[in-house]
């Protein structure tokens, strides 16, 4: 809570912030994709290209997580053979990609968004519902 305090104090001094939500794009089914449409709220905050690139990269990573590839297949077979005890020791493919995504978001925040006063949140924290950016 102490951290919260300090951040809040900072915020208090700074300014009121808002949230810009980037919604899920369901046009291709229930796959996790986010809309690349540039929210006008961010118009003068960040470069449109940059933003779209970030969202596209995230979409690609989520697609990779959900891909029905050899890795997921092998993982499934192994799990069956070991009566799913393998999940106790090994991280699933999806989780690995989620970690990658978290790192990517962190890195984007550090490099691009934070200097502009924005903050991207990891969608997994919201149940992969929305990606949002704190202004």
């Amino acid at each position, binding site marked *: 809570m102490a951290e919260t305090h300090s951040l809040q104090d900072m915020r208090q001094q700074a*300014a009121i912030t808002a949230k810009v*939500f980037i919604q899920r794009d369901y046009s291709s089914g229930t796959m996790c994709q986010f809309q690349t449409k540039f929210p006008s709220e961010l118009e003068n905050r960040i470069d449109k290209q940059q933003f779209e690139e970030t969202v596209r990269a995230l979409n690609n990573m989520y697609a990779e997580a959900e891909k029905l590839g050899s890795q997921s297949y092998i*993982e*499934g077979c192994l799990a069956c053979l070991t*009566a799913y005890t393998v999940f106790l020791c090994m991280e699933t493919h999806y989780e690995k990609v989620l970690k990658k995504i978290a790192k990517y978001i962190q890195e984007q925040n550090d490099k691009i968004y*934070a200097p502009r*006063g924005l903050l991207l949140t990891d969608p997994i924290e919201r149940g992969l519902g929305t990606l949002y950016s704190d202004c």
Partner: protein
Amino acid sequence: MPGFSSGGVGGGVGGVASAPPRPFRPSRYVPVSAATTFLVGATTLFFCFTCPWLSEHFSSVIPIYNAVIFLFTLANFCMATFMDPGIFPRAEEDEDKEDDFRAPLYKTVEIKGIQVRMKWCSTCRFYRPPRCSHCSVCDNCVEDFDHHCPWVNNCIGRRNYRYFFLFLLSLTTHIMNVFGFGLVYVLHHQQELDTPGAAVTMGVMCVAGLFFVPVAGLTGFHIVLVARGRTTNEQVTGKFRGGVNPFTNGCLRNITHVLCSSQAPRYIGRWRGRQMVEVQPPFLRPALTEAQLEAKVLDNGIQNDRHSTRSKSSLDQMESQSADAEAPPPPKPELRYPGLPRADTEESSLLTEAPPTPSMYKYRPTFNSPGRNHTALTHPNKMIRGESLDSPSPSILQSSRQPSYRSEPSSLDGTTVVGGGVGVRRGGGERGEGPGGPGGTAGGVLGGMSGYSLTGRSYTSYPSSLVLSTGGSHSSSLRSAHTAHNPLATLHSEGTTDTSYKSLANQTPRNGSLSYDSLLTPSESPEFESTEVVSPSTPLQGYTSPFLSAQIAQQREGQLLQGSATFSSPHKAYLRAVSPPLPSSAGPLETHHLLQHNQDFSSRPPRNPSSSSSSPGARLLEPPVSPPPRGLSLGKSLSTSRPVLANHTTSKPGGGVKKVTGVGGTTYEISV
């Protein structure tokens, strides 16, 4: 603040908005206990009595094979039972409150060219993603909800469908094995049927034979479902009957998706890495231009103070009339804003005044573009990052307090505070009787708003416009009734509705929803904001309670986006700011309808809890039209009354009971 639920376990996300602890119901555990007993017990007997002879007489591979199959069955059974099916964390209440009053019940998205409706879940407070459904037994929204299986006492959803399916397959195989080998044993011991071994084997065979029929039937059913790419819920509710299933990728891909895809992550109980990001501090936000504010609301479902402003002002008066019994959970500002003493004082004072209104919160679905604020987790997240939710709220509180801010939790307004100036402006606009008098920078606006709210005396009791959302239809209807006499009040509601519509419009047009395209355009919103504030006195004839608008929106969705001129016009009228009232039609008339319907609905017990224990294979339906139907009902009533809109009267259809067809195809009887 309760938002921290780092240790959340399946089935219950802690946090602000979590449901009250469910009572322990032992009856829930009967089927699963019975299933476990039969499975383990019968198999053990089989291994003890039948297998020794089989291994001697034929080969020892038989018991090993049976053991493998049995272990596989058991493993899948355990995974299906104990694994989180894909529960969505509840969205935080505070965050959504401002939207609760404005959001329509449904939001449409286009999936592979097919319009799919996302319904607002009042319990979890977000728009359910496609294929998500709320399980009434578990009281959770589950992703890719299949059904609630009583035999495993768990929902079957995205994460554990594979295990459930494999459990069925392996159980069928196991039963066949047990029955088959038991039969072999019995056939070889026909002369010694009175021996314990044979007797037990026959008993086990009976049990196996008994269970074989339903299990095999269910397995076959699920094989078909997997091949078709449907969930049990979709099959049973007939969602794609005669239509196209947008979620299918072909038989082979569907099967591989079920069996070979990587294990989906859980949404609750995750470890949240604390993000300590150095955000440039004074990213002082300049007051947004009207256009920007407009965009905020409309575009991408941005949450911002505009939302709150709009909703507040418009629904403020509506809220006061809410007759719903349920009170929205009051915000807990002390907890939320520890670092903001200013906010604390304001909030506490706010809380003391907190009025009832509440039901609105509960029932009115909010159009929350972020749709799913699944989050008990977001709260801690926010805290960690010192998110805007906390900081804006105090500011909003301040501004909003001035007029009579009552029960409205500041948090509602909070999240989207855009800027100090804007916030103040908003606050002023909102509330009904302003106890403290508007103070802030936008003095004029505040004053205007106060005056505005005062005119709608009947509504003033309700504090913030934000809160409007409760009991959506119910309260709004009540309000509407009152507002019939008070065009100004309607103006407020109109505003709110506009907001919701706009948001909706923003959402849907992207997906090609025609109905909303004709609705408010972004450009109108700013007008709305400014004009409303400036000339509060102008009677708005084109009144449409926000709630009504929402209903209309829902209606529209149900009608698959039929652009409705009637609908648009009231909005436009409203937007023009209160000046040229528009075809009043909608307003008072709708209000009345709204009122009637709402009252009727409120008295009806919520429908549904559809899915309670359904035997596997039977169906589990997610409450097709759960509580929020208030809005739904209104929409229906609106549709029926639509032709009458032209009358600028508050006359309603004749008395008696009216049957209205709802958006979802359900029919309601409304006593008129």
